[in-house]
């Protein structure tokens, strides 16, 4: 077998953060002259793997072999010296400097001890000419489009590396023409023998440019495949997995009898965020929202909760048109949102369980009518019991609780306000399997109590387990809805992979 020589091999990489296994025995290799797509949902371990390879963080165990020699990458500068160039997710350049300065900062040519600006500009022009870019290199970087900036970042990374190039979501802010331009550059570099690691969420782009695909899920490699031999459906199922414990399978939920208490969103949309959609949800319903990361799931939630303003559309609650201009207004109408990143947007880690639970209710009372500590204690005790929140004490800071219990605290906070409509964005992310099942159980119970729920999740089996209807979102458009017996993992995956199962 004449396998091409691998450029970079990572073997048995493990990395834990505070006991959470971000990478679990990961093997990954990239050949010379190959574009290798690295895929996985958020938190799958892609960025941690990249950080290990480029020296931003150190692996707990495992070896990295570059061009046949084992290396220990100390820091980003060392990685650059070893020939590993990286373009990080956000364009990491300096918008306040000129293009030439951005390309050569730290290694400017000197003459008589001073920076030789003229020869720096000449070199910069020559460098960019290789990418068919001819621009004024003495102009400020910020005066160019994001696409050009991205190409400049790549030119810099390639110029400093030459062995391996890592592109972390380089296309997120590019339009289709700019993406083509980038792909042309990538193919050129591949022909030069550079190994390119390409991270993206856009599956079409993966197939357009990559030679091989490695899928990560929960810190493990789910497999490395030739792009040509892997179908989209197979890829999606690798990314989203089918491993959720069967414990949550209760059989299909039945759609509740049509309820009068309905909330309907009509032609709700926002430019560059999510195309207009219709959604009607009645009490006792759970609408699952499925789609890949970046497809517009979270945007849908933010729009419905009044975080972002819609450009178009209307809301009716029980037949009455209303206007929701802010999350405060949404809360007044009995809406609630448990955001995706609970650390950043949800819990307040240093406050106690009691204070966190009382927060939303207190906010609704207004700040001048303070809830007494006793009221708060009663409230917290009730919910700790009802939701089975495992804490030794309701005065314990929330940050000391496990992920699942933190999630329950947020749920309790909203339930305390007695909402009619609750949006849960990834309620089970980063939660161990046991707590997972409990949260799902809880969702089912809430629904029986007559709450209208929208649950966004990457775990398709989970969505199947509790949804009465399933919305599928792809590329910022609500592309279909599955109901009744059509709800199955296979159908949802096909709808996401655009092979037309949903109407």
């Amino acid at each position, binding site marked *: 077998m004449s396998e091409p020589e691998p450029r970079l091999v990572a073997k048995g990489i493990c990395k834990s953060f505070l006991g959470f296994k971000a990478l679990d025995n990961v093997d990954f290799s990239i050949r010379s002259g190959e574009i290798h797509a690295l895929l996985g949902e958020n938190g799958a371990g892609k960025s941690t793997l990249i950080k290990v390879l480029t020296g931003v963080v150190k692996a707990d165990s495992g070896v990295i072999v570059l061009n046949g020699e084992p290396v220990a990458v100390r820091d*980003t500068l060392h990685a650059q010296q070893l020939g590993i160039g990286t373009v990080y997710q956000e364009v990491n350049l300096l918008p306040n400097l000129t293009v030439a300065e951005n390309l050569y*900062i*730290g290694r400017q040519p000197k003459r008589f001890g001073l920076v030789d600006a003229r020869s720096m500009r000449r070199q910069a022009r020559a460098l960019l000419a290789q990418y068919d870019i001819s621009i004024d290199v003495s102009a*400020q970087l910020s005066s160019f489009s994001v696409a050009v900036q991205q190409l400049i970042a790549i030119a810099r990374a390639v110029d400093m590396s030459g062995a391996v190039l890592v592109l972390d979501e380089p296309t997120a802010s590019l339009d289709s023409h700019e993406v083509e331009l980038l792909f042309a550059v990538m193919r050129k570099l591949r022909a030069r023998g550079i190994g390119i690691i390409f991270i993206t969420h856009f599956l079409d782009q993966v197939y357009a440019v990559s030679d091989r695909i490695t899928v990560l899920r929960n810190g493990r490699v789910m497999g490395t495949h030739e792009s040509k031999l892997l179908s989209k459906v197979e890829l999606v199922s690798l990314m989203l997995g089918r491993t959720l414990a069967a414990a949550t399978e209760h059989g299909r939920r039945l759609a509740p009898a049509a309820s009068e208490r309905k909330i309907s969103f009509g032609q709700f949309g926002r430019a560059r965020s999510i195309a207009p959609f219709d959604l009607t949800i009645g009490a006792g319903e759970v609408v699952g929202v499925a789609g890949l990361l970046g497809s517009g799931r979270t945007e849908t939630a933010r729009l419905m909760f009044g975080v972002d303003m819609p450009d178009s559309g209307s809301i009716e609650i029980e037949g009455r048109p209303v206007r929701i201009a802010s999350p405060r207004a949404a809360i007044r109408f009995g809406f609630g949102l448990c955001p995706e990143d609970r650390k950043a947007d949800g819990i307040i880690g240093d406050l106690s369980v009691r204070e966190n639970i009382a927060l939303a209710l207190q906010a609704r009372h207004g700040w001048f009518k303070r809830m007494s500590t006793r009221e708060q204690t009663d409230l917290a005790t009730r919910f700790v019991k009802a939701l089975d929140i495992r804490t030794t004490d309701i005065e314990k800071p929330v940050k000391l609780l496990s992920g699942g219990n933190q999630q329950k605290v947020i749920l309790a906070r909203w339930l305390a306000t007695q909402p009619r409509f609750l949006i849960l964005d990834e309620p089970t992310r980063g939660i161990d399997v046991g707590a997972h099942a409990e949260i799902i159980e809880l969702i089912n119970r809430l629904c029986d109590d007559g709450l209208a729920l929208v649950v966004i999740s990457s775990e398709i089996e989970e969505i199947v387990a509790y949804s009465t209807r399933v919305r599928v979102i792809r590329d910022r458009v609500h592309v279909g809805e599955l109901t009744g017996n059509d709800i199955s993992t296979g159908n949802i995956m096909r709808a996401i992979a655009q092979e037309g199962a949903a109407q």
Partner: protein
Amino acid sequence: MMSSRLLPFYATVVICVLAYAVCVFQFPNMLSTRVLGNLLTDNAFLGIAAVGMTFVILSGGIDLSVGSVIGFTGVLIAVLISWYGVHPLAAFFIALVIATAFGAVMGAVIHYLDVPAFIVTLAGMFLARGMAFVITTESIPIKHEFYSTLSGLFVRMPGGGRITFIGGLMVLVFVAGIMLAHFTRFGSYVYAIGGNKVSAELMGVPVARTTIAIYALSGFLSGLAGIVFSLYTSAGYSLSAVGVELDTIAAVVIGGTLLTGGVGLVAGTFVGVIIQGIIQTYIVFDGTLSSWWTKIVVGLLLFAFIALQRLLVVLSARKGSLRGAIP
């Protein structure tokens, strides 16, 4: 460079020229090289300290210890010369070494302990002022032959104006500052850190070394400003130069440097200093106005410039999003 980035600088230049024209219109006597020479001499210490402040602000930081370091240096020099009979040159050397080290330590604390520059230099401000008081609370006159020679040095301009030693020194410091900012790697590192520290670090800019050097430079120039101030007043007093750091910050901002860092010119700071000088001169010529009017006008100018910069940022952001929308 994009011209809108330089707009605050151009605005400053226009205001400076206009202000001078207004003065000359009212007091024709102000159109003389004498006034120009005095403008340089009277604002020499402010200008020198403002060069250091420009680098600090360009890097996204702030240095509140400037005035205290000037006061401390002045007292230290006066005591060394008058009480201990040290030669002025040796006293200068000692003062500069201490001031530079003081700045370097603040820079190291800011970087390694990751404490906001505002807090660290606030502590530095109290520390330096306190040290000045510990040395002496009295005003110490400096009587030394070398001193009178130095402060007597001047170059005559056509029209009878004099460029004194300290005025000339300020101009030299500005020229050196401009070279440092625009023609050295250190200069580009300063802009890089002010633009985005995280990006700068990922691009391989030596952030630690540069941060320390920036505050050391500011300390050194504050020390130099202290020397110039003692030459100017021929005395050292622990209460002198209180609040000068705020005047230098005003000069830097009026000169078109963005307070958030990354954008600005050392030359702009020069114009900023001169504008303050012109206002002061106007008040002196007028004779009836309180000298506090300087502060009022400077305050108004600051407001105007911060508003202008904010406006430019908003406008360029809007332009940027348009550009993003239309490929």
